[in-house]
């Protein structure tokens, strides 16, 4: 598992401005989305956002949900590391 990086790494932030909803915007958003690291995304959608009791929302504790799902991620990352894959690339 090599840890090669430049001194400063930035994931394509796009400058805010009026959104036109053009094909270019959608395309760029789609590309950006693919490059979002799974660990960053799961952190936000599992542990962030408003929590309400949906009628079918999981009744297990929020912590359990995060733990279970993150455990799945950790297991996968470990398995990939053992197989020699570049885990950061695959986690994107």
């Amino acid at each position, binding site marked *: 598992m090599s840890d090669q990086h430049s001194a400063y790494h930035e994931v394509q932030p796009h400058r805010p401005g009026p959104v036109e909803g053009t094909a270019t915007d959608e395309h760029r958003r789609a590309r950006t989305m693919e490059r979002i690291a799974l660990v960053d995304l799961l952190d936000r959608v599992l542990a962030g956002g408003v929590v309400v009791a949906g009628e079918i929302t999981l009744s297990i504790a929020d912590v359990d949900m995060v733990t279970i799902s993150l455990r*799945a991620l950790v*297991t*996968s990352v*470990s*398995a990939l590391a053992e197989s020699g894959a570049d885990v950061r690339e695959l986690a994107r």
Partner: protein
Amino acid sequence: MTSPAGEQDTPTRRHRIDADPESVEKGLVSLVLTVVELLRQLMERQALRRVDDGTLSDEQIERIGSTLMALESRMGELREHFGLDPEDLNLDLGPLGPLLPYD
């Protein structure tokens, strides 16, 4: 984990620790060596404190230093023998952080 994603496992199987004998042994060895490494580091720090306190004779310092040097060398051999990286010798204590310092 030996089963790749997408395979149809029964739900209970996902929770089981990988029971492959080879990896279990490697896990135990890592654990044992981690504890030994922890003790080695603690002993080293203890020795340095006593040297700084001035409570040791030159002969004692030399003997302790040689012993610790040999111990570190032996630890390196053991790690290599079991195919472990230095990073493998650590325990994540969750909120308490790792057992051994990152460096």
